[in-house]
Structures are given as structure tokens and as C-alpha cells.
């Protein structure tokens, strides 16, 4: 039976000592999904990806990619995977074209049209020495090399870092096409907003340990939402809202009240209906809150 998972890790651990590294990671990423890997810098995201590519060896535990062992079958895996490291350099004196020719030569069988299409899509300056390029432009060359052989699995470490908004748009569109074709994307970020639009599921990593794996939808359901409510006349005292199920805080700011709550808005809306409500505005910084909570390790 074909292995459903594009990536599966079991107890994957890289212990650098002093509490640094990655510990007992159990993760399963399905084929065809965009999986966001979130955590502050130093949480172990890059370490995980380097383990998957066999650039470093695990202290214990194992990983399989496309049903192949990450160490024993590494060459076969690397044929079918595209990787963008978080912090990379590419022969600064050479042009993008020369470097991409070299990397394509290492793989063999790279479709020049696909490569040219990517360069056009990202508007990548391929004829200038890479050392002269800005971070964003260098990142484009990194993305082209990761995508040019149309790999089944993409492992992208902070792919959006340094890209200007227009290029981010192209990148998001590309991710859509890639997953539409049944290919898998595993991407990391230290900010949620970067992956929120593209990821089906996310995992949050903190200090080398997995905190949570869930779909963005379910995370949204438990996210703290904030409403800014404007009342006609004298606003009711904020304490009135505190006993309502899900409400975490309510504070008065002039004529407006800021109410934050988790889960269903229903009980709160029913209570608000008792009052003369003139305006309701939703603050959209909802999800970051959960992530910050996981980052800091303050459970619920």
C-alpha cells in the first residue's frame, strides 16, 4: 500500500546539549498539503529541515520522506525534493544563470522552460553576479533552484523572508499550483501572517518541542477574537460582560468597549443585543495571539 504521508518523523531528536536542538518530534505531513512550521527563531525549525535532508544526523529517532528513509535513501529523496535553506549563499561572483546551470547539471533532467517560467514569474535578475543582489533577489534564485525540477516535495525554510509584496503574491500563486498538482509543501516561518494565507495545517514549535499541530480553521476556533463595540448613550459597565462564556477581557476606551473572547461569539452577541449597540468592528489580530501564547508557553 502506498504511504500516504509525504513526511513522517518518529521521535526525531537532535540534541545539541544545553537544551538546544529538537526533541522527540512526531510529525506527519500528508501528500498534497501545505504545512506551515511555526516557531520563534531558534525553536528547531531549521534543524528539523536539515535532518530531513540528511545534512545533519539525528541523535535518535527517524524520519521518512516519500516513504523513503531520510538517511539510507537520502540520494533518492534528494532527487525528488526541492529545498530552500533559511540562510544560504551562492557563489557571489557568479551570475544566477551560471549557478542555476550548475545546480540543474547536478540534478539532470531539469526542464529549461520550467526554469525560465519561474525566473519570469519572480522577475529574477539572473545576469548579475549574485554577490551584487539584494536579499530579496537572492532569495528568488533560491526559490527557482528549489522549484525548477518540479519536485514532489518542497522543504522551504523561511521562503518569504525578504520578498517584496508583489513577489510574495507570485509565490503564493505558485504554491497554489504546486499543491493543485498534488505536490507537498513544508514551509517554515517565525510569523504566522506569512503562512496564514497558504497553509492548510500548522505546527508550532517552541524550544525544540512540538506544541501543537492543527488546521488553521481549528486554531481560529480557539483563537482569541477582539471586538470593538460602540454604544449609544452611556456604555454598560465592562464587568457585565466578564461572566459571559468565552469572554477573557472587557475594557472601556472612551465611548468604545474592547472585548476579547474565545470560541463562539454567540453568548456575547446575545448579551450585546440587550444594549444600544451602534457599531461593531472586528480587530483582525486574532491568531497572532494564540501563537504568542504558544510561543511563551502559557497554555490556554
Amino acid at each position, binding site marked *: 500500500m502506498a504511504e500516504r504521508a509525504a513526511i513522517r518523523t518518529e521521535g526525531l531528536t537532535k540534541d545539541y546539549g544545553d537544551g538546544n536542538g529538537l526533541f522527540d518530534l512526531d510529525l506527519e505531513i500528508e501528500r498534497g498539503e501545505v504545512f506551515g512550521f511555526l516557531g520563534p527563531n531558534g525553536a528547531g525549525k531549521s534543524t528539523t529541515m*536539515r535532518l530531513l*535532508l540528511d*545534512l*545533519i*544526523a539525528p541523535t535518535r529517532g527517524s524520519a521518512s520522506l516519500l516513504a523513503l528513509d531520510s538517511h539510507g535513501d537520502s*540520494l*533518492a529523496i*534528494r*532527487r525528488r*525534493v*526541492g*529545498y530552500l*535553506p533559511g*540562510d*544560504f*549563499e*551562492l*557563489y557571489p*561572483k*557568479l551570475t544566477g544563470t551560471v549557478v542555476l546551470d*550548475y*545546480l540543474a*547539471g*547536478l*540534478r539532470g533532467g531539469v526542464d529549461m522552460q520550467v526554469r525560465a517560467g519561474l525566473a519570469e514569474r519572480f522577475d529574477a535578475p539572473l545576469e548579475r553576479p549574485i554577490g551584487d543582489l539584494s536579499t530579496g533577489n537572492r532569495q528568488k534564485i*533560491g526559490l527557482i*533552484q528549489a522549484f525548477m525540477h518540479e519536485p514532489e516535495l518542497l522543504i522551504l525554510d523561511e521562503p518569504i523572508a525578504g520578498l517584496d509584496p508583489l513577489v510574495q503574491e507570485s509565490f503564493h500563486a505558485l504554491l497554489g499550483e504546486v499543491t493543485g498538482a498534488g505536490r507537498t509543501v513544508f514551509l517554515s516561518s517565525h510569523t504566522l501572517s506569512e503562512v496564514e494565507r497558504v497553509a492548510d495545517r500548522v505546527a508550532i514549535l517552541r524550544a525544540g518541542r512540538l506544541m501543537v499541530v492543527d488546521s488553521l480553521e481549528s486554531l481560529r476556533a480557539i483563537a482569541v477574537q477582539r471586538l470593538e463595540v460602540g454604544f449609544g448613550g452611556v456604555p454598560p459597565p465592562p464587568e457585565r460582560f466578564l461572566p459571559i462564556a468565552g469572554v477573557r477581557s472587557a475594557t472601556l476606551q472612551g465611548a468604545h468597549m474592547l472585548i476579547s473572547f474565545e470560541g463562539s461569539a454567540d453568548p456575547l452577541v446575545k448579551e450585546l443585543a440587550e444594549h444600544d449597540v451602534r457599531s461593531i468592528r472586528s480587530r483582525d489580530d486574532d491568531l497572532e495571539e494564540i501563537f504568542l501564547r504558544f510561543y511563551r508557553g502559557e497554555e490556554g
Partner: protein
Amino acid sequence: MPTFLLAVRLRLVGSLLAAVGMIAVLLMVGALFPAVGDSIGKLDLPEGVAELLGGADYGSLTGWFRSEIGAVYGPLVIGATAITAAAGSTAGEEEQGILAIVLAHPVDRSRLILAKGAAAAVGVAIVAIGTWIGLLTGVAVAGGGIGLAGITGLAVHLLLFGLVVGALALAVAAATGRKAVAIASASAFAVLGFLVNGFAPLVDAIEWLKYVSPFYWYDESDPIANGVDLGDLAVLAAATALLTVAAAILVRRRDLRG
């Protein structure tokens, strides 16, 4: 193969410049001989110091080239070329974060190291050929006096000397992933080998140490006077092969840095 070609390309200008520099220096050395040869003659130096300077016999053309090029300058240039190429293209690229992308491609680590080593060897060969051309022209400018066998002997011995110190740099770079460590240890080995080869023969208790020095195998047969010595070259070649194999094995056993 792509890795070999790219590595050769990246170092080609540097190697050619080193070769051209070598030719220029040898031409000057040759041009100076008629003026200097008679006035200096053979220096009266303590045995060990004279040994370090390749005999310090400036009275004959063979002695002049042996001291000016064979003893220090030649090994220095070819050793520096070999060590910087071997360490820079491996540990250097690893520290820069280039190898993280390259090794995410379907490339075997050992083969990558071997390709880089082969490319460094091409750079060393270019400098050795420059030395050969330089010796031919330098000797001609000086009015002749060293045969083709001696000229070829010195150039080939230099080539193998460069290969062996380069292979050491490659092995250390492959084992540690640290460019500075690789350059420092290979350079220290060459310098210590130079001193040991000069002084160890003077002290019976440590005379055997000279066999560890690449300089001993490089110059004990006096190649500029006697031509190539296949036995000595075989020792240097075997050491080069051993260190290269060690590099290919050691690079597999560790985490990539950067």
C-alpha cells in the same frame, strides 16, 4: 562532473596568475644569475641553515635555482595554491552556506569532495606547468646550464609536493568543515616539515623525523640536478592518495556546518 568543472572555473584565474607570476619570477632569477653568480659564490653558512636554503651554492646555475626557487619560493607558492584551493572549495563553501544547497541535490558527499580535490589538483598542475615554463626560460636567459631532465624533475617534484599538502588540507577540511583549521594545519605541517627536514638530520635521535616531512621526499634526491626520482614521487603520491581517501570517508561522518 559539474562540480569539478565549476570548481576549476572558480579558481582558474587565480591559478593562471600564480603561474604567470612564477614565470616572471623565474625569468628575473635567471636574468640575475650572470651578475650575482660570480660575486656571491658559495655562502659559508652553518650546515643546517645552508640546508634550509637548498645548499646556498650561488656559484653554479643549478645551485642558484635550487636555492632561489627549489628551496623556499616554489614550495611556498605551490603549497599556498594547493591549500587555499582545497580548503576554500570545501570547508570554505560549507561555512558560507553554499554546500547546504549543493548537498540538497542528489550528490554524494564523498564524490563532491573528490571532485573539489581534483579541481584543486588542476590548479596545482597549472602552477607546476608555469614553473616548468619559467625554469626553461629562466635558464635560457641565464645562458643555459640546467638540462631538461633537471627542469622537469624540479617541476614534477613541486607538483607532487603541492598535491600532498593540498590533500592534507582537503582531509582536515572534510573532517572538520572549518576552513581556517584546514589552512592552518596544512600550513603548519608544511612549515614544520621544512624545519624538520633541515634540522632533524643534524640530531641522530630525531633523524627519522625527516621521513615524515614532505620536504624530505620532495628534495632529498635533488631533482634539479638529478631529474625525477620515481621512488620519492611514489611516496608523495601514495600519501596524497591516502589523505584524499581519508577526506572522502571523513566527510560522510559528520554534520554539515553553517
